[in-house]
């Protein structure tokens, strides 16, 4: 059952189209990867799906969430969706989290807003969530401020915040790009766990092909604002239909290859 459906989504700024005619759907338990290089419009697309585009941008097309078109929705209508039906996690948790608010309260925020919990219940749930995302010493950590946590810990908090109200869809925009590779591996494992546990559908956006390929079952490839390829991950990786996707995969394969000369004979 499709939860979110974008049809012919077009985003323009000053008459310049930044995203052109993008269509795709997301259902529960989906794992969709959106890959593109800089300027591809992937982040703008993600923002549009939650009505978070900066002012000055014009959108056209349709964004159906649970069958209702939210394209021109008011902020109030969007607020009913954000955090409750669709959540988003960004690349840099330092800027996505309020630097002056203890993280426990930030996780509790959506709980109080959407589920009407009182403060102590919400705090209890926040501690539960901290435990769920494997943060050390949750009872103490809920009082910490974001800058007192490491990058990986902050991203765990961001995930807890995003999933606290059990949304049906999670959009993750480059969630591990700013993290060290070992921390990235931990967060990706955590993401996997959480998706299995909560049944949330995932839209994973990244420029990093191996990461996306590891997470997604369905792959969308964007270039210059257009969706140039869409299909099951294996199909796209092995039998890309568009030239761009073929080039991208070939470059990614070369760039991410761990050259091990003695295994592969002559090498450089």
């Amino acid at each position, binding site marked *: 059952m499709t939860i979110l459906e974008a049809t012919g989504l077009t985003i323009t700024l000053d008459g310049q189209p930044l995203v052109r005619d993008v269509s795709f759907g997301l259902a529960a338990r989906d794992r969709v990867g959106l890959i593109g290089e800089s300027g591809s*419009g992937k*982040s703008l697309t993600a923002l549009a799906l939650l009505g978070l585009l900066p002012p000055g941008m014009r959108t056209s097309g349709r964004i159906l969430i649970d069958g209702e078109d939210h394209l021109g929705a008011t902020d109030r209508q969007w607020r009913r969706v954000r955090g409750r039906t669709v959540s988003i996690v960004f*690349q840099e948790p330092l800027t*996505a989290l309020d630097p002056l608010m203890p993280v426990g309260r930030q996780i509790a925020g959506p709980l109080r807003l959407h589920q009407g919990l009182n403060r102590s219940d919400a705090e209890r749930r926040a501690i539960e969530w901290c435990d769920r995302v494997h943060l050390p010493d949750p009872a103490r950590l809920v009082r910490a401020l974001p800058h007192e946590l490491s990058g990986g810990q902050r991203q765990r908090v961001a995930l807890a915040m995003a999933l606290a109200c059990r949304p049906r869809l999670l959009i993750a925009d480059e969630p591990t790009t700013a993290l060290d590779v070992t921390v990235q591996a931990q967060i990706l494992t955590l993401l996997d766990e959480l998706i299995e546990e909560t049944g949330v559908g995932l839209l994973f956006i990244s420029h990093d092909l191996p990461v996306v390929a590891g997470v997604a079952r369905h792959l969308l490839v964007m270039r210059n604002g257009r969706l140039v390829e869409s299909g099951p991950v294996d199909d796209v990786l092995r039998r890309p239909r568009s030239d761009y996707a073929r080039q991208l995969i070939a470059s990614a394969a070369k760039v991410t290859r761990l050259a091990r000369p003695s295994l592969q004979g002559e090498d450089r």
Partner: protein
Amino acid sequence: MSTPLVEAVETIGVPDTPARRRRGCRSPSFVIGATLLLAVLALALVSLAWSPYGLDHTDPAARLAGPSARHWAGTDRLGRDQFTQLMLGARTAVWIGLASVTVAFVIGVPLGLLAAAAGRFVENAVVGVIDIVIAFPTLLLAMLLVTVYGASTAVAISAIGIGVSAEVARLTRISASRVFTQDYVLAARTCGTGPLMILLRHVLPNIWHTLLVQATLAFGVAVIAEASLSYLGLGTPPPAPSWGRMLQEAQSTVSVAPWNVLLPGLAVAVTVVGVNLLGDGLREILDPQLRQERQAAGR
């Protein structure tokens, strides 16, 4: 001020469309400000060659007269033509304004650069001095200097110049520090470029637009400071004309001749508003270019 949205937009890179470029170049603030300022400058320049009457000319029969064909701005209590006074006052304001700003920048910019470039100890020392001077009211400083050296144009320029220099130094330090964090400064060091060359070729070219905007604002500050000093009798001594002194002299007769207070006050206001609008306009014009460069570079 980087929120996820701002980051996303910056990463995406807002394209440099012709519409955006045009909007940046046409700035109403700049146009209005420049017009006002040019009017004042014109008055000042013309006064060098001509004015309706001589400075000392008095018309005893027409004291405290309102604006008329003979006296466009009326006369003061001694029968002196106000328009002449306004013109010559403009000259004083512009001269003292420019001179003070020059003094402020000659002192402030090297100090700011020194603070940004030097080690923490020197930087802290300079910042301390700057903060003290900023906290110290310019007028008090002026009074201090006048007490010691007597009232004169030079003292007024020095006092205002020193007072404003602190703010200039502060802004220079902040802007230069930001440039120092850029990799291209480090790259210059690894190219063997010496510190002086780095300041001249890398730092100054990247901060001059900020300093220019500040110079225009400093000019406005200087004009008000000069008017205040003259009002208090601490500025350019008579008979040199000054809007501030015009205000002071017209105070007692304000009920009979309000225009003698209104017009000099308006002159100061027009000058300061004009220069502030000019500064805003400059910022609008200069910044979009920079932002476009930065965003195009994000590609």
